């Protein structure tokens, strides 16, 4: 115990730092809880320490790829803060280097640099500009503490005193470490939050993109809309290329939010199209089926890639900071690629965006393939359809003959109705109309079989009844469960001014004979439909068609139109025939077809086929008007 014999008072020394420290930590608590935005949080932490604890405060964060980026600087002099931020951007800290921040991040332990000499500053400066900066502004004392959360080091918090300020002491280190600990928690939360938001945004983007991709079979249009979806949410530029049948790379879509920039892309597309054999870029991705990410594009790489000066100029003016190219894969391999470029905007593409881009490209690839198959099937269906219908109806002297056909179902569904008109020799013609129950390729096959079997049988001279038996036998030879078929055959024999008819029906609605006043009656006796039962009951019935009279063959799609609610029915059809005297033959058929379509409310469930023949008045070959 010191003996103060001189009588000088011994003052109890209250630690002046104590209250300041507590106050700072309380403030820190409030500030750090107030925001989940990373940049804001960092800025707030830095500003807390100035000027109370430091003249300058710097926060450096470790990025995913191990580099030290994302700096926040606070200082009473705003210019100084900006200058340091720029320095960091131009000369990023080397994570393996001598700089105390790098050391603290590596070791995870705080460091006190009570007095920093010029020599020390120069030893860890990142270049001469950095050294000059630190010396000019009088870096004198520093504490660097690790930012740690969830047992990981996220970066470092540095507090600095400049000029003649009091140097930091051991006691100050604890405070900075504590502050850094709380700051680290806040920064970690902010990062998790932004990751969560990015994931949610990616999900919502993917579900929107999926909707767009599924919405139409016109894939060029769809891909253009996908490109518009991507910009500017994910990238500044989006371009989509597709491999065509000749293995040429076709640009199907390109988008940028600024139309002037789009024009720039137009020049590139027109004048410098890539070919599949080129080593880099879209051709490479399409050949290999692997994605490519370019996050740092040095100018000389562009120069190497460019074909000539103008090409280089165009490429440079895109101003790409990062590029991601992902393959669109179809069933047999890559069929194209999607290119994303970030240029002007804040957000630069990185590996994190690759996941979303690849998912998008996979779905786009599937959608393009489906659309192509759909169109291809449509072409096949159309070709097949042609086999079921005669290209042109033969001319029957003294008579007008017309037909109408409407296939139910979509582009890809081939119908089950058929009709034909054959010259049977010696002023005799055979009119036939039939209906195979079913749809799709198998029914189409049976329909073709039916038409051609009947034709062959007719040409070989068989009678109507024989023809029907022939077809019946052919159908029974088909695999079990085959489709049934109904047929109406009319043999027409031309005499001086009239036509003698013989009608044979096999399960088919009877044709109508319409007289000159529009009264219609059915002709023909019911006969057994073909392909199902063993025994057939078939009969022929005769009739005569006089000048001006009309014979109408049709399939059940006509009377069945409108189903159970507004069905046309045989009665409705007979009613429509009353208009025959005032309508030309084609016009009459059109009227009937129109009525059927109306009743079906535009969505046909069965095919419609009409075959009409009108005997002309001898003086007027052609339509009666």
């Amino acid at each position: 115990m010191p003996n103060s014999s001189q009588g000088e008072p011994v003052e109890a020394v209250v630690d002046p730092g104590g209250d300041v420290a507590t106050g700072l930590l309380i403030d820190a608590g409030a500030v750090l809880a107030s925001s989940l935005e990373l940049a804001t949080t960092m800025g707030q932490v830095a500003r807390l320490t100035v000027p109370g604890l430091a003249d300058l405060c710097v926060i450096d964060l470790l990025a995913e790829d191990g580099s030290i980026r994302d700096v926040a600087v606070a200082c009473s002099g705003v210019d100084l803060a900006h200058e340091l931020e720029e320095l960091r951007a131009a000369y990023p800290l080397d994570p393996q280097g001598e700089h105390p921040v790098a050391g603290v991040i590596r070791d995870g332990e705080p460091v006190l640099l009570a007095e920093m000499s010029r020599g020390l500053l120069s030893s860890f400066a990142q270049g001469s500009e950095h050294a000059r900066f630190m010396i000019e502004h009088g870096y004198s004392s520093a504490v660097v503490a690790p930012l740690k959360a969830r047992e990981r080091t996220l970066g470092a918090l540095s507090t600095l005193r400049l000029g003649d300020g009091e140097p930091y002491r051991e006691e100050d280190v604890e405070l900075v470490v504590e502050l850094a600990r709380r700051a680290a928690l806040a920064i970690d939360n902010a990062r998790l939050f932004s990751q969560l938001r990015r994931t949610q945004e990616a999900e919502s983007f993917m579900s929107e993109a999926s909707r767009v991709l599924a919405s139409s079979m016109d894939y060029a249009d769809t891909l253009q809309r996908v490109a518009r979806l991507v910009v500017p949410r994910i990238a500044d530029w989006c371009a989509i290329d597709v491999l065509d049948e000749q293995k040429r790379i076709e640009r199907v879509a390109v988008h940028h939010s600024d139309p002037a920039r789009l024009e720039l892309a137009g020049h590139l597309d027109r004048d410098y199209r890539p070919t599949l054999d080129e080593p880099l870029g879209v051709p490479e991705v399409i050949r290999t089926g692997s994605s490519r990410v370019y996050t740092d594009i040095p100018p000389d790489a562009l120069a190497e890639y460019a074909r000539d000066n103008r090409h280089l100029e165009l490429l440079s003016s895109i101003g790409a900071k990062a590029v991601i190219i992902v393959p669109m894969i179809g069933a047999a391999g890559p069929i194209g690629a999607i290119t994303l470029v970030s240029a002007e905007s804040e957000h630069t593409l990185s590996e994190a965006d690759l996941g979303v881009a690849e998912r998008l490209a996979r779905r786009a690839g599937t959608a393009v393939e489906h659309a192509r198959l759909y169109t291809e099937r449509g072409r096949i269906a159309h070709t097949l359809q042609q086999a079921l219908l005669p290209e042109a109806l033969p001319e029957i002297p003294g008579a007008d003959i017309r037909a109408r056909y409407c296939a139910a179902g979509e582009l890809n569904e081939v119908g089950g109705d058929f009709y034909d008109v054959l010259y049977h020799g010696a002023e005799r013609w055979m009119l036939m109309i039939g209906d195979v129950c079913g749809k799709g390729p198998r029914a189409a096959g049976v329909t073709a079989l039916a038409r051609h079997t009947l034709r062959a049988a007719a040409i070989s001279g068989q009678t109507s009844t024989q023809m029907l038996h022939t077809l019946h036998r052919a159908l029974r030879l088909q695999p079990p469960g085959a489709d049934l078929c109904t047929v109406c055959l009319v043999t027409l024999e031309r005499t001086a001014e009239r036509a003698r008819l013989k009608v044979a029906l096999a399960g088919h609605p009877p044709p109508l004979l319409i007289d000159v006043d529009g009264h219609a009656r059915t002709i023909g006796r019911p006969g057994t439909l073909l392909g199902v039962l063993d025994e057939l009951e078939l009969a022929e019935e005769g009739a005569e068609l006089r000048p001006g009279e009309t014979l109408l063959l049709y399939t059940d799609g006509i009377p069945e139109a409108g189903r159970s609610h507004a069905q046309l029915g045989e009665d409705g059809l007979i009613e429509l025939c009353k208009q025959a005297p005032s309508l030309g033959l084609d016009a009459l058929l059109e009227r009937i077809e129109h009525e059927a379509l109306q009743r079906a409310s535009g969505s046909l469930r069965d095919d419609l086929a009409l075959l009409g023949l009108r005997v002309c008045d001898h003086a007027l070959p052609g339509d009666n008007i």
Partner: protein
Amino acid sequence: MEVRQGEDRVVLGLHGELDLLGAPMLEEEIAKVEASATTILVLDLGDLQFVDSAGLRVILAAHERSRREGKGFALTQGSDQVQRLFTIAGVSEHLRIIGSPDDLLV
């Protein structure tokens, strides 16, 4: 469609429309009955408004199978449209039409 188990038969009651869409379902139900021990199948068409060739095919196929296997198969009277279709198809003489679902099959 309802399935009713009678004393000596199964009755399938059809309603509304029997067409390309509904035919497979009927086919399935008929197959179940054919696989069981029941020897008489009746289609109750009393409530059936519309049938097309797809429905007709299922009915005729069932008729043929019942003939081959010596089992009973009958239909009750359907609507005018249904009966008209049977007539046009030339099968009304072949199919067994009964007055009500539980009538004796003669």
